[in-house]
């Protein structure tokens, strides 16, 4: 048992009164009953709730409601975060209801879906919330029975006093417990005593999902609500010149058409603000189809903008970002990237004397890898509900970064932070796209103008052509071998439009005596941002494919080659800033080797291997495939993962399977290209996503069992499978797949 100081304070109680009365998504009106809690498992709803702390309340009948603080984007935190609280509370999971918490930074830390950090960062806080509530219930029972609290034990929501034979359900003392002070320190369970964490629990929204109950932002409705859509410039590099709404306004159901301006002139955007299209035309009407069809009748003139600079408040302080004028094209990007890669880059890390080693090498292997822009395409298009009045703003919908967008909204609407009320709905995916909440500002400004509640809806075309894309990437890798085929130097030069993907201190840095990492970037006016495992989603493919080629040139088994490098990095690391744990890295490679039968069972198989470390977790994959160049069939994918303690194993497997399918899909088919600033793809007839027939026939997932506190899982299983796939494709076809998408889109001919 561990004793920790609690960080919950009185404030948690006072502010938490905001949460009482099941007070989420109150505005759902006719949808309210369906939306607020996960109550669908036949639990009886209590007559009265007692708020123990901001994370949980207990009913007189012992049913517990646990708040899930972070946005749910499909990563299943709405189940796994409450599981952690329930574990320390020591309650029967069958008696737990879950509610999505609204944004409330006074109670909850880091209400963000990003960086694979929800569980990792909240692990201590969630445990503490459960443990301190348990302690308060024990204190209340001790008082009631007039016995020392040390003699009280709990099990599955029941308090016991062994000596007197007394027992009471949590519900019976909840009212008294709610009056007690928060304990200064609490005991946390030993990991070996976990009963909920480490067991598979079903998605708390599962029943609602399969019966089509309202859950998503797009499903939200309120009496008197209008529907809004935006019209944005057709190309990056363009801005609004003028518009004529005469025709649109004559269309049935159309209420208003006007211009909105996303930022005030003196506003300094933060990282989650998007500056590509800041002046838009809004069309507001009664129903979705009326607005959607009227959109075509808007007459708009666009004009190219001139170069400008914008001051952005970034993670590392303010940054002056150059936005070049021009209507860019993919052909031009590719030519610029090739030219930039031929020049020296900015040196990001240098160990030993790489230049000399390359000069002395008996053999130099040099390869170039590229990947195109990608659009996020979450299944639920961007949307948001806003109801803005003179002194208050309510925003309800799918957002990954509510804490940050609250600041943007407060600045733009001229309201204090506490007057911005943000409620998060379940998200139909996000993959990073919903970190950039310009659509919330748009919805708020439209509601403010029309003085009515409004739901803003993007079409799929809006979503793809107004993207915050994964950048286009380029990498040059070089390896120097001596005359005995030893690896003596390693060089990576990475670039991209408008940023590169380099992680200079990651493997194989630390494993090679002579190492050089360089970077470059090409300015662009195309908006980019985080997409599932940013940077890593390219590095893993390029680096792991290159290592496969190097191993082949050295005449080594690709797994043994990686293990040898990691042995070196562990025993005698080069440099000091290596940001991975070589033993854990090797651990997942060994696990995937054993589980896939790599040593005994590889004959006659087209298999490829890859491993990668990102977001604090380690993942290795083996991919087996059959078929040929035009029609590869992925038979099986093995995954070995070290993400520390796994909270909800079956859900973790589900997410891993999804990341593997996503990785295969994006690397095989994903690409967004540009002509004259305009995306060439705008819906699923031209932007190709992986489908049922293309998914792997089988996926087998293994977790390393350890007692390390949980680390990320939303992103880490995504990057390495692409490298393993490229290496398996080589085995099947004899061709190296260095440029994504691996399979040219069937849409092109």
């Amino acid at each position, binding site marked *: 048992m561990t004793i920790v100081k609690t960080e919950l304070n009185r404030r948690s109680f006072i502010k938490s009164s905001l949460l009482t009365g099941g007070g989420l998504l109150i505005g759902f009106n006719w*949808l309210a009953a369906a939306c607020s809690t996960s109550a669908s498992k036949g639990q009886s709803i209590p007559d009265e709730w007692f708020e123990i702390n901001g994370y949980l309340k207990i009913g007189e009948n012992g049913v517990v409601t646990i708040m899930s603080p972070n946005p749910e984007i499909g990563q299943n935190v709405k189940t796994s975060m409450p599981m952690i609280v329930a574990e320390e509370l020591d309650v029967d999971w069958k008696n737990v209801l879950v509610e999505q918490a609204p944004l409330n930074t006074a109670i909850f830390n880091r209400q963000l879906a990003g960086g694979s950090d929800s569980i990792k960062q909240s692990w201590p806080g969630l445990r503490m919330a459960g443990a301190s509530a348990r302690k308060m219930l024990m204190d209340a029972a001790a008082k009631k029975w007039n016995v020392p609290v040390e003699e009280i034990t709990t099990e599955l929501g029941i308090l016991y006093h062994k000596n007197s034979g007394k027992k009471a359900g949590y519900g019976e003392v909840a009212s008294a417990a709610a009056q007690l002070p928060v304990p200064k320190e609490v005991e946390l369970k030993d990991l070996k005593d976990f009963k909920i964490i480490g067991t598979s629990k079903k998605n708390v929204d599962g029943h609602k999902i*399969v019966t089509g109950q309202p859950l998503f932002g797009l499903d939200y409705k309120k009496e008197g609500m209008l529907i809004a859509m935006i019209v944005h410039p057709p190309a990056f590099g363009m801005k609004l010149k003028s518009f004529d709404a005469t025709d649109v306004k004559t269309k049935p159901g159309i209420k208003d058409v006007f211009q909105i301006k996303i930022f005030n002139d003196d506003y300094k955007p933060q990282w989650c603000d998007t500056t590509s299209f800041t002046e838009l035309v809004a069309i507001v009407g009664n129903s979705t189809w009326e607005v959607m069809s009227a959109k075509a009748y808007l007459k708009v003139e666009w004009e190219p903008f001139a170069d400008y600079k914008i001051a952005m408040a970034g993670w590392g302080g303010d940054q002056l970002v150059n936005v070049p004028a021009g209507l860019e094209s993919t052909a031009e990007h590719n030519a610029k990237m090739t030219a930039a890669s031929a020049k020296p880059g900015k040196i990001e890390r240098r160990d030993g004397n790489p230049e000399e080693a390359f000069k002395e090498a008996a053999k130099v292997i040099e390869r170039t890898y590229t990947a195109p822009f990608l659009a996020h395409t979450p299944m639920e298009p961007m949307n948001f509900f806003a109801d803005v009045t003179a002194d208050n703003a309510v925003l309800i919908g799918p957002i990954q970064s509510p804490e940050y967008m609250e600041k943007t909204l407060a600045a733009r609407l001229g309201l204090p932070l506490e007057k911005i009320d943000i409620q998060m709905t379940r998200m*139909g995916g996000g993959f990073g796209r919903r970190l950039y909440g310009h659509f919330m500002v748009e919805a708020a400004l439209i509601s403010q103008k029309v003085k009515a509640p409004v739901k803003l*809806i993007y079409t799929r075309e809006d979503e793809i052509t107004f993207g915050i894309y994964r950048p286009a990437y380029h990498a040059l890798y070089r390896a120097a071998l001596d005359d005995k085929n030893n690896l003596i130097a390693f060089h990576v030069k990475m670039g991209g439009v408008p940023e590169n993907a380099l992680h200079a201190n990651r493997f194989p840095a630390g494993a090679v005596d002579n190492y050089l990492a360089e970077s470059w970037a090409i300015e662009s006016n195309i908006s980019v941002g985080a997409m599932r495992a940013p940077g890593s989603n390219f590095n893993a493919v390029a680096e792991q494919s290159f290592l496969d080629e190097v191993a082949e040139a050295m005449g080594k088994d690709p797994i043994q080659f990686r293990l040898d490098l990691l042995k070196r990095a562990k025993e005698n690391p080069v440099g000091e800033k290596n940001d991975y744990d070589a033993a854990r890295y090797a651990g997942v490679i060994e696990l995937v080797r054993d589980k896939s039968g790599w040593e005994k069972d590889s004959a006659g198989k087209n298999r490829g291997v890859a491993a990668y470390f990102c977001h604090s977790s380690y993942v290795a994959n083996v991919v087996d495939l059959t078929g040929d160049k035009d029609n590869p069939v992925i038979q099986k994918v093995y995954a070995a993962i070290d993400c520390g303690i796994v909270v909800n194993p079956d859900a973790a497997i589900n997410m891993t399977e999804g990341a593997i399918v996503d990785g295969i899909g994006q690397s095989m088919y994903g690409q967004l290209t540009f002509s004259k600033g305009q995306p060439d793809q705008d819906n699923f007839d031209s932007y190709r996503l992986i489908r049922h027939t293309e998914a792997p026939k089988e996926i087998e997932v293994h977790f390393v069992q350890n007692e390390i506190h949980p680390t990320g899982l939303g992103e880490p299983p995504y990057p390495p499978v692409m490298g393993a796939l490229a290496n398996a494709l080589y085995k099947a076809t004899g061709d190296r797949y260095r440029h994504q998408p691996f399979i040219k889109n069937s849409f092109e001919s």
Partner: protein
Amino acid sequence: MAIFKLKVNRKEYQVDVDPSTPMLWVLRDHLNLVGTKFGCGMAQCGACTIHLDGIAVRSCITFVDSVGDKEITTIEGLSENGDHPLQQAWIEHDVPQCGYCQSGQIMNAAALLKANPHPTDEEIESAMNGNICRCGTYTRIKAAIKTAANS
């Protein structure tokens, strides 16, 4: 605008909408049946799948004036108590990630099983190929359909 009489999930409704309105928006905006989802609006993703007389169609391109007296079934009406064998299998396999595509997947799978109660893996894959799951739950969807087919 025109008045249309519709039979949805065994209930009669009347709506006054433009004849070119897709059933997707009639269901979502006018009948408050929001289980049918909008994903692409052009018959590419399957999120909007409903049944017309038991046949799976994409409601985003099924215009209200083309429905006539055909019976419409949406995810909300697939079963009385949310216990269609597919819905149960979906829970058993804990299929959803974000969940957004799943009502369309289930409706498409329901039409498949009606026409072909014991499909092979290949038949499942090709019948389901028009339904995108951006979260990549394809292997679980297939497993759940097989479980439902065997129940």
